[in-house]
Each structure stands twice: as C-alpha cells, then as structure tokens.
C-alpha cells in the first residue's frame, strides 16, 4: 500500500504520481536551501513542517531520499518518515512497519560510501527508532531478519563502509533503548522499560561480540600499515559501541538482592553518594558476561592493540588525541571499573588478575611521573596521562585500599599508593610552578587524583576505622600532604585576582586534603601545629615593620586547612570527632600533650588576641577574622562541651586513655566554659568592631552563634556567662548592633531567643524573651502612637529603625518553640495595632511593607498551631485586616516612572508581597491540619476554610495573569488553590460569582502552563471540583449549584456551566496539545468525574469529533475508541479508587490509539 512492503526497487509509479512527487521534492529542496541562506525561514519551516505533518508522506519521503541531490532535503525526508511513522504507527499495516525499517536500513547500506554522513546517521537513527517502536510487536523471526542483515554488515562481508554503517546503526539502537538517551514516542514508561529489558537480556551481549569480531578483523591491518588506513574508522566505531554498551546500566542482570550482598562480600563498596567532580560509573554487567569480557582475552587484545599502535606512532604527538586512541583509552578506563557478579565469588584472583592486566597497560601512561609530567610540560598531550589518572580512580572505586596498594607490587618495588602519591606530588608541583589562571591539564589531573584519594580513604572511614593504610601508604600520604599544604600556602599568596573567594568556596577541595591528612595523623597534626606556631611567630615579629599581608594570607589558609582536618562539616547533624583522631596517639596520657589539644589550644589562644584593640588593628584584618570565626564555629561544633553519649559515636576504642583526654579536655569540668566565654567575646567583638563587614557578620551570626545555640547543653552554659549577657544587652540597647545588615539582624534575634532554652523553667525562658524584645516592641508602639506619625515615618532614620526592629521581630518569631511560645505570642499581640498602622503609613515604601508582611507570615507560622480558639480568632481577624488594608492600597495602583528598571523593581516587589500573603494563607490552612491547642474540635469557633477563602477573595484580584508568570508565585498560588479545592470544595461553592470565576480563570490559565507541576495541581483541583459536584448531586444536594448549571445573560446568550467548560478544555488539551506523558494519569483522574457530571455534553463532543473525521476508516476507529474508553475494564459510574484506576488505563489506551491521526492535519 505504501510502496515499502516490496523491499527495494522503486518502479511502478504512475506518471501523475511522479509529477506530484517531483514537485514535493522541489518544494522541500527549495525550503531547505532557503533555511540555509536564512531567507524567509518562517515560510520554509512551514513547508517542511507540512511534510512532517501530512498523512502518510512515506512515498514522497522515499522519493526525496532516493532522488534528491540536496542533502538537507534528504535529511528532512528522513525526519519526516520518523515523525509520521511514530504518529501513525498504530494504524500502519504490519508489512509497512517492517517495510519502513528495511527501507531505511537498505538505504544506508546502499549509500554507505556517501560523503554526507549526517544524512546516513539520521536515516540509521530513524531505523533504530522505528525498530524500537515496533519492538514488542515484531516476532523473533522478524527481528532475526533485520539482525542477520546487520550482522553480515558488521562482519565486513560488504566492505568497510557498510561495516561502519552496521556498527553505527547498533550505536543508535543501543542509545535509543537506553532510558537517558531514548527519544520520546508518546508512550507510557512501561513500554520503554520492556524494550530495555528485552534488549539487555537477549541482544546486548551479541552486539558486544559482533563489535569485538569487527574490531578484531581490522586490528592487524591497522597495526601493520604505516599510515592512516580506512580501517581506523571502523575500529573507532566498534570501540565506541563497546564503550556505549558497557555504559548500559544492566538493571536486569544483577540477579536481585543477592547481587547487592555479593557487592559487599567482594570487598566492593556500593557507590555511596560522594560529591565527586569526576564521574566514575561502575560497570556491573552480571555473571553472563564473563566469557565475553574476561575469558576471551578481550582485555589483553585491547591493551596490546593500544600499546602497539602507540609505539608505532610514538614520534607523532598528535596521535594521543586521535579519536581511535581516545576511544581505546576510554574503553580501557571503563574496563577498570568492572565489578559485580561477573567475577565468580569463588575466584577472587580473577578480579585481581584482570585489574593487574589493565594496570600493566596503563602504567606506561603515568609512570615514571616526573618524566611524564616533564614531557607534557614540553608540549606532549596530557590526555593520556589524565586517562591514566582516571584508570586509577576506577580501580580505586572497585577495590579496597589494601588491594589497590598490592596491585603494583608485582610490577614495581613499591605499592600503588606510593605511585599515586608520587603522581599527585608531581601534579601539585606543576601547579605550583605555573600559577596561571587558565585551566591546564594539571588542574584536571589534580581533581581526578584527589577524587581517587577521597574514594580510597572514605572507604576506610566507613569500615570501622581499623583498616588503615599500609605503613608505606601512610608515609606516602604524609609526604603528599605536606607538599599540598606548601602549595596551597604559596598559591594563596600569589594569585591576587580571585583572592576574594569566600571561606566556603574551597570547601570541597580542602575536604579531600583533610582526608589525606587524616590518613597519616601521627605526622600531619604535629606538622600543622608547628607550621601554625611558626606563622604566628612571624606575624608578631614583623608587627608594625613589615607588610603582613603575605603572612596573614598564609595564616588564613592554614586556619581553613586545619579546620577541615580537625573537624567534619556537621550539616545539621552532630559532627563526630574524626575516627582517625580518636584512635591514634595511643601513647598520650596527659591531655596537655595530646597533639589535637595542643593544636586547638594554640589556635584559640591566637584568636583570643583579637580582643585587644591594638592587636586587632595590626593583625586581625576582616578577612583573617572570617577564617577565625569559621574555624571556631567548625571546631566548637565537634569538640566543645561534648555530651558523652552523643558525640562519642559507636566505637570500640572507648577505653583508650588518649581518647578520654581528647574528650574531657574541652568539657564543662575542664576548659570548656572558659573557651566558650572566649568564643562569645570574640563574636561580640566581630559584630561591634568591624562596622560594615557584611561577610564577617553573617559568618558570626549564622555559622558560629547559631551553631552554638542549636546545642541544648551549650545554652545552659551560655546563659550563665557574663559575656552572653553583654551580647544580649548590646542587642537590646546598643546602637551599633542596629548597624548590622538585615539578615544578621534577624539571625541574631533568633539566636538570642533560642538561647532562652537554657533557662531552668518555661516561665524563666518566657521572661527572658520578654526582656530581650521589650525594647523593640515598645519602640514600635511608641512610634505608632506618635501624633505626627505620617511625617515622622518618612524620615530615613525612622525607616531604618523600623526595618531593623521588624527584622528582629521576625527573627524572634521564627525561633518560636514550645518553651517560649507564650512570650512570642505576646510580643506579636502587642505590635498588632502598630503593624496595621505602619502598613498604612508605609504604603508607598515597599521595602518596609515586605518586612512587615514577612514578620507576620513567620509569626503566624510559628504560633498558629499552639493557639486556643479565642486566640486564633484574634490572630485571624488581624490577618484579615492586614489583607484588606494591603489590598485596598494596591488594587488599581499604577507606578509611574520613566525608568524601566524601577518599574520592574516595582513589579518584583509586588510579586514578593503577594507571595508572602499566599504563604500567610497557606499557614492559616495548616491550623486545620496541625493543632496543639487544648480545645476540642467542637469548640473550634473559627472556620478556617472560610477565612482562607475570604483571604483568597481579597488577594486574587491582585494576582494578575501577568504576575503568575513568576514561577514561584505561580507555584505557591496553585498549590494553595488545589489544596483548598481538594479539602474544602464546599466552601468554594459559596463564593460569589466574581470570585468564583476569577479562581477558575486562573485554573484555566494554569492548565496551559508549561510547568508539569502547575498543570498537575490544576488537574487535581479540577478533579476535586468535579467529583465534589458529582457526589453532592448523587446525594440529592445542589453541589456547585448555579456555577455548574450555566446561565443565560440579559442579552439572551447562554453561558455554559463551569464543568462543561472544563470538560471541553480538558478534552481538547488531551487530544490536540503537546504535554508530558506523566500528566496522563492525573488528567484521567480529572476527566473521569467531569464526564460523569456532564454525560450529555461528552456524548455531543464525541460525536462532533467523529463527524470531523473525513477518512471513514478513522471514523470507525475513533467511534470504537470512544466507546471503549467509557465501557471497557468494567468501568462503572461510581467515583472510587478502582474506577479511577480503570479509567486511567482506558485513557492511556485511548490516547495511544487515536492521538496519532487526530493530530494529523
């Protein structure tokens, strides 16, 4: 029927058809050339698109492919075949399906020697996609026919070009079946998954073998010839294909849970989520691949191949970067990370032999390190060396440090760890020598090698701390670490350009360095202590005479490095003292001599000097202070005032005396409180004596102080300290702390309120908070009572004061805890009226308004769940007044300005305000979900849903469709709406007409958004709406009443009800628009109740669709499909889970069946 079923040969085309085909070809060629010269591209694109969208354009496409001289036109024709075949697949005849694929395959084989490679690879990928589309319906025999053809091609019986094409096709096929690279076909995920499974289990290994055979067939030719031969191209393709196949995830070959157990017993760790810069995928193809990859001497062949060709082209430096060399190395690196069941568990040597073989091959790339690095610096390509590093990383990923170290011993007098250390040392030296900004090979090599160390060393940490490196490895780590420190200190003093990197910027790298240091603590801790005291001494000597910048910078870096070595980043968890530091230094009995204590004490002593004004001005620059504060924060979290049970961790070394003195030295009976006092005094100094140093202040507030009060036991000590009292006093009364920037202001208030936990009783805690905040609240009250408020409020100093106070109130509000809830409730209560007054006077000062709103949002969020009924009523009334005042100021307001920047700012401010208001409403909603008050549910006097709808009513007019373009606002708005509709549909029905239609207009708008989340929320809202109506109707109630029924307006025009409108919209959406397949189930859930609500309209729409179809064949198909949609799977008309599920299934089938031809124009 389509002229494809009879395989090749294009005869039998009538003269009329021929003319038609020729004109199509002419049009497409013209369009392609127009696009190329960019003249009237829109029209040209339309021409091409019309080919893509025309029904069954295969004949034309085929004609173009076979006859056109314009390569682009052929490309477009191939694309059109793909597009329409995928669309029309469900109603193509079986013969045609096969015919299309064999045509594509035949085409590429015939034109294998064509110079336009991109056309060939397009056609070949079209063949691959179509093959996947039909994969589950073709019989094994059908597939056999295709693959026989491919196999013949790959074996090389039709020449090199065809061989290349065959390999290339398999490449497309594999990538089509692999989930991350597959192309969309409008089918459920299940389909793709089944295809993947089938390919993996039945074909993948054969493909690999074919590639191996093809590679073998050309190897000797390449090795023997002395110039570049065409075989290289084939060889490269096969290497790429093998690499790609090994990249497959092999989810079905691991044999269930048993495999994961084996992974452990093999000494291979599961790939824990390390944040590594270099990607290293573990290849686990399963036991069945053993013969292909291991016993067939495949690896040996590959290594030999690479080394012999490498030797041959030794003199020609460019060879290292040739595609074939790159692919071969990639494959070698990949084979290094082979793991899992492929190695039989009863034969451990097999894996070691495999790795040893690979290491032997890789060794010449990296050893001896100094010679190699010198060669690279003299102009050789660094890519081979970098691949060598990658191979080490791969081996490190699949082995334990001991096995890793042993590998090299049979080849060299030293272990692999020593080689790794030497190699990295060499790289670090090169980095030190040329500190240029440009990214060179050494940067990349350093990162990869660092990852290797990280991988090896974290594996030990996890295994309980006993599997230390072998002695030689420890030595290697120690010497590498001192080299690293040297280079870091040197680097920081040299480059002036990016000196302003913040403390956390280097975190990741320093974290890896710390692991190396911890692998050899016996040497590195004393080394760091010595280095630090040397530098401090140097600072003191040169004070006042020498420019200290260089030394300051070195101390800065040292503090960061030491901080990383001594303590881990807590990230919200309790950071334990690193294992290595706990279990070493066994012979230390006195705390004063413990190297970690010595190092920590010397740094604290140094930090304490910043309290002296003179020292501060000469030594403690803001930047150095940042490092000091950062260090103190990190250190104190791990060492200061430890509580026995939680910071010790589970460790067998409990009884070690060295360990005991490390833990007790900084506890409350020893130096703990003293050090805590120093830390608080340093914090106060950094807040008051460094005016305008934003980074420093933020660091002090967020990292240091906040981390301190997060630990409950420390709060008790803090409150007993004079220094902490001073800090609280300064906060309440001292003007200098009003100069902190806003976030620090907020954080400080939060911190101080949180510290109230340390009071002995709840009453005392509340009193503490009250005293702390009294001054703030009274200043707001005083201001708002002032008779001349209107003028006064506009003064800059008052604006600043108000902003500060609001930030602080907000900070305090966000620190609400059960213990201090009373005080914070009263704090908010006392400023309610002032807040409303200020909302009035600052209506043009959007920055203040935003602070006001945010304070209320946080306060309500913290308080609401604790409040009793009468308190809730007060809060809710307050929120409603707030909403009303805000709304009355902003409805219909237009900013006039010449500056587009200022206009945009105004819009952004409005968006932020609205977002805060929506958050407020969401928080109010939560009262219905979480409620700790003592009232029983019956006494609940306020109906939250009504309040929130009322609120929505107030603010929806402010939310314009324009503003919904802000993604976050859009998200907040629709999540609130869908939540409301799902939980309280009955209240929506009571909204007045305007509000109701406004809400639904926005839902309609949301349905047409690009964002899947937004559409999902709107669909959920629709589902809720329709199912509510349906259920109410069935129960004999009015449901949505007049909203659903539709009405006739005074002009006699009938406006249909809301559900009818959405049924129409949703059907149109599902049938004709583009959307993600993920949406289909949610859409089904919405469509089902809509159909039940409006069965007549649905019938009508269905008939309309059927009538529109010109093709009688499609007409019946569509009618059947519509019939099946609502009847199959025993679908009944009740809205229960089972029916929803059935309908989802039905809709999926329905769409697969009809979307193809409905979308054709």
């Amino acid at each position, binding site marked *: 029927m389509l002229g494809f079923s009879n395989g090749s040969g294009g005869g039998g085309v009538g003269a009329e058809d021929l003319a038609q085909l020729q004109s199509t070809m002419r049009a497409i060629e013209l369009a392609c050339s127009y696009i190329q010269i960019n003249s009237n591209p829109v029209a040209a694109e339309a021409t091409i698109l019309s080919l893509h969208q025309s029904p069954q354009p295969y004949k034309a496409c085929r004609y173009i492919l076979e006859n056109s001289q314009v390569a682009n036109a052929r490309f477009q024709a191939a694309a059109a075949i793909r597009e329409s075949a995928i669309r029309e697949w469900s109603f193509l005849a079986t013969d045609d399906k096969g015919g299309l694929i064999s045509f594509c395959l035949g085409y590429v084989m015939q034109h294998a020697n064509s110079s336009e490679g991109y056309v060939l690879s397009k056609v070949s990928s079209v063949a691959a996609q179509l093959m996947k589309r039909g994969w589950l319906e073709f019989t094994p025999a059908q597939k056999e026919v295709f693959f026989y053809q491919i196999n013949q091609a790959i074996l090389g019986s039709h020449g090199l070009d065809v061989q290349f094409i065959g390999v290339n096709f398999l490449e497309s096929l594999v990538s089509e079946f692999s989930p991350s690279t597959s192309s969309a076909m409008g089918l459920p995920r299940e389909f793709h998954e089944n295809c993947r499974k089938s390919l993996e289990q039945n074909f993948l290994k054969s493909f690999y073998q074919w590639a191996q055979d093809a590679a073998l067939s050309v190897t000797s030719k390449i090795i023997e010839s002395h110039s570049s031969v065409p075989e290289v191209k084939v060889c490269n393709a096969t290497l790429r294909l093998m690499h790609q196949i090994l990249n497959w995830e092999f989810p079905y070959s691991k044999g269930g849970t048993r495999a994961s157990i084996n992974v452990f017993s093999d000494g291979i760790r599961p790939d824990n989520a390390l944040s590594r810069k270099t990607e290293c995928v573990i290849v686990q193809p399963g036991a069945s691949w053993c013969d292909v990859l291991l016993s067939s001497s495949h690896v040996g062949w590959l290594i030999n191949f690479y080394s012999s060709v490498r030797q041959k082209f030794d003199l020609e430096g460019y060879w290292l970067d040739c595609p074939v060399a790159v692919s071969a190395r990639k494959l070698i690196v990949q084979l290094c990370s082979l793991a899992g069941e492929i190695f039989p568990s009863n034969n451990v040597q097999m894996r070691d032999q495999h790795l040893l073989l690979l290491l032997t091959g890789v060794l010449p790339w990296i050893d001896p390190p100094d010679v190699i690095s010198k060669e690279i610096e003299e102009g050789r390509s660094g890519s081979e060396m970098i691949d060598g590093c990658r191979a080490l990383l791969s081996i490190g990923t699949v082995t334990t440090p001991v096995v890793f170290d042993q590998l090299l011993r049979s080849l060299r007098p030293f272990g692999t760890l020593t080689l790794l250390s030497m190699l990295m040392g060499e790289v670090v030296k090169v980095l030190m020598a040329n500190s240029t900004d440009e990214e060179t090979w050494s940067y990349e090599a350093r990162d990869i090698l660092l990852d290797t160390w990280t991988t090896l060393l974290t594996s030990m940490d996890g295994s309980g701390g006993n599997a230390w490196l072998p002695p030689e490895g420890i030595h290697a780590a120690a010497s590498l670490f001192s080299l690293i420190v040297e280079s870091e200190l040197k680097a920081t003093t040299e480059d*002036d350009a990016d*000196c*302003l990197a913040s403390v956390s910027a280097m975190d990741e790298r320093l974290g890896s360095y710390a692991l190396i240091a911890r692998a050899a603590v016996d040497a590195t801790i004393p080394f760091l202590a010595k280095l630090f005291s040397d530098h401090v001494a140097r600072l003191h000597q040169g004070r006042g005479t020498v420019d*200290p*910048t260089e030394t*300051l*910078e070195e101390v800065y870096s040292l503090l960061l490095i030491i901080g990383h070595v001594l303590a881990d980043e807590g990230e919200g968890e309790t950071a334990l003292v690193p294992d290595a530091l706990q279990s070493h230094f066994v012979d230390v009995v006195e705390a004063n001599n413990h190297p970690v204590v010595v190092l920590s004490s010397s740094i604290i002593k140094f930090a304490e000097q910043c309290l002296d004004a003179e020292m501060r001005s000469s030594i403690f*620059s*803001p*930047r*150095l202070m940042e490092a000091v504060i950062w260090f103190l924060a990190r250190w104190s979290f791990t060492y200061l005032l430890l509580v026995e049970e939680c910071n010790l961790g589970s460790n067998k070394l409990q009884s070690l005396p060295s360990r005991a003195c490390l833990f007790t030295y900084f506890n409350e009976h020893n130096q703990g409180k003293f050090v805590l006092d120093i830390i608080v005094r340093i914090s106060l100094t950094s807040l008051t004596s460094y*005016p*305008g*140093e*934003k*980074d420093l202040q933020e660091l002090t507030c967020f990292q240091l102080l906040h981390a301190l009060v997060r630990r409950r036991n420390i709060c008790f000590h803090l409150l007993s300290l004079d220094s902490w009292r001073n800090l609280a006093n300064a906060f*309440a*009364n*001292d*003007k200098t702390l*009003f*100069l902190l*920037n*806003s976030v620090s202001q907020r954080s400080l208030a939060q911190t101080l309120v949180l510290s109230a936990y340390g009071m002995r009783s709840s009453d005392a805690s509340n009193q503490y908070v009250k005293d702390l905040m009294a*001054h703030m609240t009274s*200043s707001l009250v*005083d*201001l708002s009572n*002032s*008779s*001349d408020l209107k*003028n*006064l409020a*506009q*003064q*800059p*100093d*008052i*604006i*600043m*004061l108000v902003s500060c106070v609001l930030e602080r109130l907000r900070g305090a509000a966000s620190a609400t805890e059960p213990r201090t809830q009373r005080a914070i409730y009263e704090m908010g209560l006392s400023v309610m009226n002032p807040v409303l007054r200020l909302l009035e006077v600052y209506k*043009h*000062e*959007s*920055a203040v308004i935003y602070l006001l709103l945010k304070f209320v949002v946080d306060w309500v969020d913290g308080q609401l769940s604790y409040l009793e009924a009468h308190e809730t009523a007060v809060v809710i009334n307050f929120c409603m007044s707030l909403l009303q005042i805000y709304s009355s*100021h902003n409805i*219909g*307001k*237009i*900013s*006039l*300005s*010449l*500056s587009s*920047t*200022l206009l945009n*700012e105004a819009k952004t*401010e409005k968006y932020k305000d609205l977002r805060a208001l929506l958050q407020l409403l969401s928080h109010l909603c939560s009262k219905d979900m979480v409620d700790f008050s003592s009232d029983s549910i019956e006494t609940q006097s306020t109906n939250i849903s009504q309040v929130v709808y009322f609120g929505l009513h107030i603010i929806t007019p402010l939310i314009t469709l324009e503003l919904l373009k802000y993604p976050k606002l859009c998200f907040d708005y629709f999540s609130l709406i869908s939540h409301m509709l799902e939980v309280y549909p009955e209240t929506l029905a009571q909204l007045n007409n305007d509000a109701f239609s406004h809400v639904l207009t926005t839902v309609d708008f949301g349905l047409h958004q690009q964002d899947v989340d937004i559409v999902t929320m709107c669909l959920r809202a629709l589902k809720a709406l329709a199912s509510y109506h349906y259920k109410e109707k069935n129960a004999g109630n009015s449901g949505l009443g007049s909203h659903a029924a539709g009405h006739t307006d005074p002009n006699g025009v009938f406006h249909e009800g809301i559900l009818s409108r959405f049924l129409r919209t949703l059907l149109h959406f599902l049938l004709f628009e583009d959307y993600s397949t993920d949406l289909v189930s949610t859409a089904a859930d919405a469509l089902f109740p809509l159909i039940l609500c409006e069965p007549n309209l649905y019938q009508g729409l269905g008939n309309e669709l059927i009538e529109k179809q010109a093709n009688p064949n499609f007409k019946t198909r569509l009618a059947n499909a519509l019939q099946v949609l609502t009847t199959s799977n025993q679908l009944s008309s009740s809205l229960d889970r089972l029916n929803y599920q059935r309908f989802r299934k039905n809709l999926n089938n329905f769409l697969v069946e009809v979307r193809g031809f409905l979308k054709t124009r």
Partner: protein
Amino acid sequence: MSDEEHHFESSDAGASKTYPQQAGTIRKNGYIVIKNRPCKVVEVSTSKTGKHGHAKCHFVAIDIFTSKKLEDIVPSSHNCDVPHVNRTDYQLIDISEDGYVSLLTDNGSTKDDLKLPNDDTLLQQIKSGFDDGKDLVVSVMSAMGEEQINALKDIGPK
C-alpha cells in the same frame, strides 16, 4: 535603657533634606544621595580593598526624578547621605490645558503648582484614566526640594 534611646519628636519646619547613614546598612530598594541627586538603590555589592583591607560598597542607583543611572563606591563603615523622601496622596481634580494638575489636599484646599510629566506614555496613563471619568488618587513624591507624581490609583466610582 541606654541614653541613646530614640525619642520620637516631630521634625521642625527646617527638617534636614538628608540624613547620614552608614553605607553598610543601605540596602537594595533603599534611598541614597549620589552626586547630590536623590536615588533609589537597585543594586548593592560589597568588595574588599586589597586582600586584608576593609569592605566597601558599590551602589548602582537610579535618580528618582530623572531616572538616570548613577553609581558610587563608599567604604562600608563610612556614612552616606540618605534623602528624606516624602510621599503624599492627593485626589486629582483637574488637568489644565497648560499641563498643570489641580490636586485636592487633605485639608480641603487645592494644590496647583505641579506640572504633568513630560513623557508621553506617563502622560497618557494619567490622562486616559482621568478622561474616562475615574476617581484618581495621585501619589506625589518629594525629595530635596523637587516633587513629581510617581503613582496613580483608581479608587473607583464611589
């Protein structure tokens, strides 16, 4: 409490047009005087003078009257001038032929010395609403001796 406590006294007639404020505390969306012009800050960034020096603030701001962009760099511990920006709402009574507006003040008198903006779009925005017979409130922004209409609000037919 400390003797630095704030007392809210109404400012006298000769209230200063600007106030000093530490540069580090001026934020985005706040006001600042640059080259003797009142501006709104649209961007603040901080940097350091040299590695171990002190922080300084880099302000990008827009003249609230002329919409010109101005920039300034100030050490963050130093003071900047912040303009006293006042905004007053008036009901729009009339737009005269010569481009002046007539505004109704709170105490019932009229204010007739304010000229309409020169820019056509702004002019259009004001005029069209007025011509439609809407009740309009204009907000007049004044600072450092200049004033201008900066916002418009439709309070709807009563």
